[in-house]
């Protein structure tokens, strides 16, 4: 039985293929089209999934789309009716898109699926799951738990913005939901917009900026904007928002409440933006914590599964784990809309078809390495065609030459095995660095990634070593938990350093691994497991043997605004356009100084800033 899940037409289109309940392949369309958050129909991702499974569209038993377009249309119509005539501008923008395209999604999906194999229309079984059902299914059915409480939180799907579910074996019941326009995701997005970042991609930046500030506005937010109840339910005072009726997130009342207009994108950040970020982060953490407590109360479960865009807030996740409300928490690595494709497919298998679910203590994500991989011979051919000069080395030498480069504080592009599904690079498509270097964070931000200098980097650490370095002793394979660097690894700041605040904190070395220690001593930890990524695990082992440090800086293999690399050519182009000094793809090793000068390019201008 083959089930193809699809998410598309809003942001982060993706496809996922499930065969007899096992996840065969999953990938985001942006990786193939090289357009960040690409919302178009995932033609390339579907084609890849079919190729990986060795099948054709004719072999697919069910295709499932991750939300219900007509219910979304209902939400739009009822919102415009409720706010008439104020919403006319938004109405005028949205309705043509719907009347022209989105209302005809069923036909459009059949046509696009047919086009993949050159036929007019695909005529098989086409199903639709609800948006939050897809998220909840991606969180629970892919988790290692036999039963669990399930929380999904995002911007909005059809109506639902937050749901509480109960998963047992192959059953998943949604027990409570909070509906549009009351949304934690939209609250966070409103502050993302107000602090001058791009909605739907800058939320990570707000989270990264928060530790530089103090939550001085948190009470103001709780007193005026969000009415947060003890059970985690909430209502947003719509007077402060503009997303129901206009084309921005916040309203003049919001600007008045915080004494100023939104920051203009790319203008200098001030302490005010840092304090705003810290404040909305604290409020979000409080809401998530209350929701989780209530979910525990309602379901009586000892395990929790999370999905939806808000579940990518790893700081909130880390705090939730520390509160020990649950014995264990599992977060879907593709918690955003891309993961909806996978959730929809799993929902069909378990809920629609009623098929059994066998758990064995491990999750079903295969380390989230669910994307394309390239054979060594193909890597060599593709790199040669791109004009690269490379050495082909043995497996052992791949590790030793990479460790040499890392120990010399070089930035290394590392492309191995299958591409990750979800927004995080997990050692399949990563840029690696030495975390002990006090200059690594700045170098990587400004010369390699071309992004804002305040942004933190995450560490990869062997699962065996995690508790020797971080205040964490659980699996965090998907980089979705934040934990503090152990006190014994920290440096004590001197008096002058103690008095610094805001962005100046960035220049103070804070621990033995300064490149991955954020200003509040936190780190977004990825535990590396021998079973799911043996080569990366070997690299960390060798780096530890050389330096006594089992930690590496791991950042996604891309520049700001670019999707993570997919193919060897993508990796080579990024290598040639940045100050990455070594590139290791499969068993091919490239040094920057060996490459033809004419292949160097001005790369950072190629992508629109995110």
């Amino acid at each position, binding site marked *: 039985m083959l089930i193809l899940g699809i998410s598309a037409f*809003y*942001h982060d289109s993706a496809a996922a293929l499930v065969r007899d309940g096992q996840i065969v392949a999953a990938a985001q369309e942006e990786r193939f089209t090289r357009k960040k958050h690409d*919302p178009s129909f995932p033609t390339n991702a579907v084609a890849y999934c079919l190729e990986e499974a060795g099948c054709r569209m004719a072999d697919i038993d069910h295709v499932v789309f991750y939300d219900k377009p*007509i*219910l*979304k249309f*209902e939400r*739009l*119509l009822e919102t415009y*009716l409720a706010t008439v005539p104020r919403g006319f501008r*938004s109405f*005028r*923008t*949205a*309705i*043509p*898109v*719907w*009347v*022209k*395209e*989105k*209302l*005809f999604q*069923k*036909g459009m999906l059949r046509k696009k699926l047919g086009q993949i194999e050159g036929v007019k229309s695909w005529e098989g079984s086409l199903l639709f799951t609800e948006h939050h059902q897809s998220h909840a299914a991606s969180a629970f059915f892919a988790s290692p738990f036999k039963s669990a409480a399930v929380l999904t939180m995002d*911007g*909005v799907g059809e109506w639902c913005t937050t749901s509480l579910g109960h998963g047992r074996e192959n059953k998943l019941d949604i027990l409570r939901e909070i509906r549009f326009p009351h949304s934690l*995701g*939209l609250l966070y*997005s409103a502050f993302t*917009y107000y602090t001058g970042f791009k*909605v*739907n991609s800058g939320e990570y930046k707000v989270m990264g900026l928060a530790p530089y500030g103090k939550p001085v506005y948190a009470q103001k937010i709780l007193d005026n904007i969000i009415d947060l109840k003890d059970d985690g339910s909430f209502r947003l005072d719509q007077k402060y928002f503009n*997303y129901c009726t*206009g*084309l*921005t*997130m916040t309203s003049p009342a919001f600007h008045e409440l915080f004494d100023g207009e939104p920051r203009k994108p790319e203008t200098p950040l001030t302490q005010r933006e840092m304090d705003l970020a810290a404040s909305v982060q604290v409020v979000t953490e409080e809401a998530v914590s209350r929701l989780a407590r209530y979910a525990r109360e309602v379901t009586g479960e000892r395990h929790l599964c999370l999905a939806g865009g808000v579940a990518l807030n790893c700081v909130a996740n880390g705090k939730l784990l520390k509160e020990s409300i649950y014995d264990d928490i599992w977060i879907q690595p593709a918690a955003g809309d891309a993961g909806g494709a996978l959730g929809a497919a799993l929902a069909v298998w378990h809920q629609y078809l009623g098929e059994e679910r066998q758990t064995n203590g491990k999750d079903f994500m295969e380390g989230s390495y669910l994307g394309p991989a390239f054979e060594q011979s193909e890597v060599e051919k593709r790199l040669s065609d791109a004009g690269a000069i490379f050495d082909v080395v043995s497996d052992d030498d791949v590790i030793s030459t990479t460790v040499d480069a890392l120990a010399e504080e070089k930035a290394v592009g590392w492309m191995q095995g299958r591409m990750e599904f979800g927004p995080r690079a997990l050692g399949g498509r990563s840029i690696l660095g030495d975390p002990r270097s006090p200059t690594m964070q700045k170098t990587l931000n400004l010369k390699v990634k071309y992004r804002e200098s305040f942004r933190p980097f995450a560490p990869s650490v062997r699962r065996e070593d995690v508790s020797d370095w971080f205040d964490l002793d659980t699996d965090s394979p998907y980089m979705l938990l934040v934990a503090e660097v152990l006190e014994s690894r920290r440096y004590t700041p001197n008096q002058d350093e103690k008095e610094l605040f805001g962005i100046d904190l960035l220049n103070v070395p804070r621990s033995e691994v300064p490149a991955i220690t954020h200003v509040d001593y936190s780190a977004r930890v990825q535990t590396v497991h021998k079973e799911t990524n043996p080569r990366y695990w070997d690299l960390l082992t060798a780096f530890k043997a050389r330096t006594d440090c089992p930690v590496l800086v791991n950042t996604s293999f891309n520049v700001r605004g670019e999707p993570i690399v997919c193919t060897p050519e993508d990796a080579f182009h990024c290598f040639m356009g940045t100050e990455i000094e070594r590139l290791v793809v499969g068993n091919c090793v490239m040094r920057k100084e060996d490459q033809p000068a004419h292949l160097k390019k001005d790369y950072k201008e190629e992508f629109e800033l995110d």
Partner: protein
Amino acid sequence: MELVRELWDYMSTRKKFWLLPILIMLGIFGTLIVLTQGTAVAPFIYTLF
């Protein structure tokens, strides 16, 4: 025609027949709007629609 049938099924299931006149009006005016302009893009807002 498939869309009309789906909308009818939707209104029957959700008991939302009061949306019918709005949908008819939208069908008429929406077609006019489509004929007079291309797809609009809203850059500063979450993808609500």
